[in-house]
């Protein structure tokens, strides 16, 4: 990529920031979590046969997919909340904005960079789970799980967007806490909404209805238990979840850019 092109094309600038964010994450040894994950999966593959009475394949899927999500959420939260604040703290943000880079491009580039890191992480972990399943002699689940793995990535992409949004106006510690709470509420909102129907209180029902639609509905991306039972998400489900993630991320990033654009770095 030549320098003049980079300057002229906003898309190239975003790609450049994303690439740098990815490289920085690698330098920060974010992918070291893969070592822990590999140890976990290898232990599962070797030990679960005796513990699960022949159900080791489904248990490997359950442990593996949940570990992918948990590791991914930790990366999304703890790296995500530092993406913007670190640049401000180290004052590298001045160097960046002294060049022809818009604040929106900076946010989107940072976001895509972390998403790329998460994608690599999720792909390697997914491959690890597939290999463990092959090791225990299962031939179908190593392929079946990839629908659920993709949905986990979409969930992580939303969590990252939430983390960046909070970090655009709050301290890293508070942003991490708030993002974690959104992650929890995002998973519970559908169940709370169902629960509210039985409570009979209109106010509660209204509040939970608002939470259901305002908070990210992360239950839409939960397909781990189903995958362990050899179920495959339909095209409509994957397509709907992808579109939902796309739209929700666009909203979150728009708000983030709006807040970040007004921020004074002095």
């Amino acid at each position: 990529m030549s320098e003049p092109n980079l300057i002229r094309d906003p898309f190239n600038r975003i790609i450049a920031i994303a690439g740098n964010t990815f490289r920085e994450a690698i330098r920060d040894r974010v992918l070291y979590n893969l070592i822990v994950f590999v140890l976990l999966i290898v232990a599962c593959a070797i030990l679960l046969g005796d513990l699960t009475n022949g159900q080791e394949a489904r248990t490997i899927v359950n442990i593996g997919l949940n570990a992918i999500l948990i590791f991914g959420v930790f990366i999304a939260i703890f790296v995500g909340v530092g993406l913007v604040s670190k640049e401000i703290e180290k004052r590298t943000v001045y160097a960046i904005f002294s060049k022809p880079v818009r604040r929106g491009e900076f946010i989107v580039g940072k976001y895509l960079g972390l998403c790329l890191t998460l994608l690599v992480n999720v792909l390697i972990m997914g491959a690890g789970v597939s290999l463990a399943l092959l090791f225990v002699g299962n031939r179908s689940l190593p392929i079946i799980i990839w629908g659920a793995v993709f949905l986990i990535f979409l969930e992580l992409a939303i969590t990252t967007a939430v983390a960046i949004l909070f970090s655009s106006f709050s301290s890293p510690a508070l942003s991490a806490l708030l993002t974690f709470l959104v992650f929890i509420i995002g998973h519970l909102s559908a169940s709370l909404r169902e629960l509210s129907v039985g409570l009979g209180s209109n106010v509660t029902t209204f509040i939970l209805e608002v939470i259901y639609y305002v908070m990210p509905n992360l239950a839409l991306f939960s397909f781990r238990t189903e995958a362990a039972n050899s179920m495959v998400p339909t095209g409509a489900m994957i397509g709907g979840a992808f579109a939902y993630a796309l739209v929700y991320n666009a909203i979150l990033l728009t708000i983030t850019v709006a807040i970040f654009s007004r921020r004074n770095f002095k």
Partner: protein
Amino acid sequence: MPSNRKVSVLTAILIVTTPLVYILSNFTSANRVTLSEAYEDSDLDLQGRRLKGFALGSEGLLADWYWMRSLQYIGDKLVKNEMETINIEDLQPLNPRLLYPLLDNATDLDSKFIGAYSYGAVVLPAIDPSLAVKLAEKGIANNPESWRLYQYLGYIHWRNKDYELASATYERGSYIAGAPSFMREMAAAMKNKGGSRNTARLMYQQIFDDAQDEQSRRNAELRLMQLAALDELDVINSIVRSFQEKSGRCPTSLKEILAQLSAKSPPGGIEFHMNAAPELTDPTGVPYLLNQNTCGAVIDAAKSRIPPN
């Protein structure tokens, strides 16, 4: 403090404290207040159906947790029991009252967990047949497309000697797309000769071939061995009787009738089992005993893995 001296002091501290960790760890462990023996039978704190939807999408993982607990629960009961033999047909003396709640929780959290229904169908009838039926019916309600669950329910009814209901269950299962032809065969066999040994053999062979968990497979294998032993004993005892009629006495040991046995074999073309002695053995390799009081060959219940009834 000079550097060398500092290193020596630190090394000395490490040498003294490291064994202390070992000693203190063992001391604390030995003096820990232990839970009462009844703890393992404490009622479950959580109900799977209430937990569902509030586990951040990890219901399957929790179901696996309850599943493993149910296996360990029964395993612990078997290991700790002081009975000389365990009758796999009747596990009530072990009082495994939490098995159903554990499997119920596992299947509440993951209603598609066929392995848990299968395990329940094999083990629960030996504890409480009504709970076995309840779990299998729950499985069918949650997985109406699974013919295998009808097979398990039919098996439970058959064990309860309710051959009509077993036949009807197999027949219902045989209509499900993908159900193998033996479901229809079993429906007919249940109706016509539900209590026969051949029906039992067919039943346990199917369970052995299709079992999704090791426990069910092992149980079915033992049952098949038991049926083979019963066939063998029928032939052996008929020869013992004819020996007694001809000689007017009971054989002193089964070795005395080995020559006559070589001319006969149990039904189904099965060969008799012999050890190096040579003695007639059951399918698990334990020699049959000759009861001089009844003048009949029997399984050595104290040594054989074959269940007593």
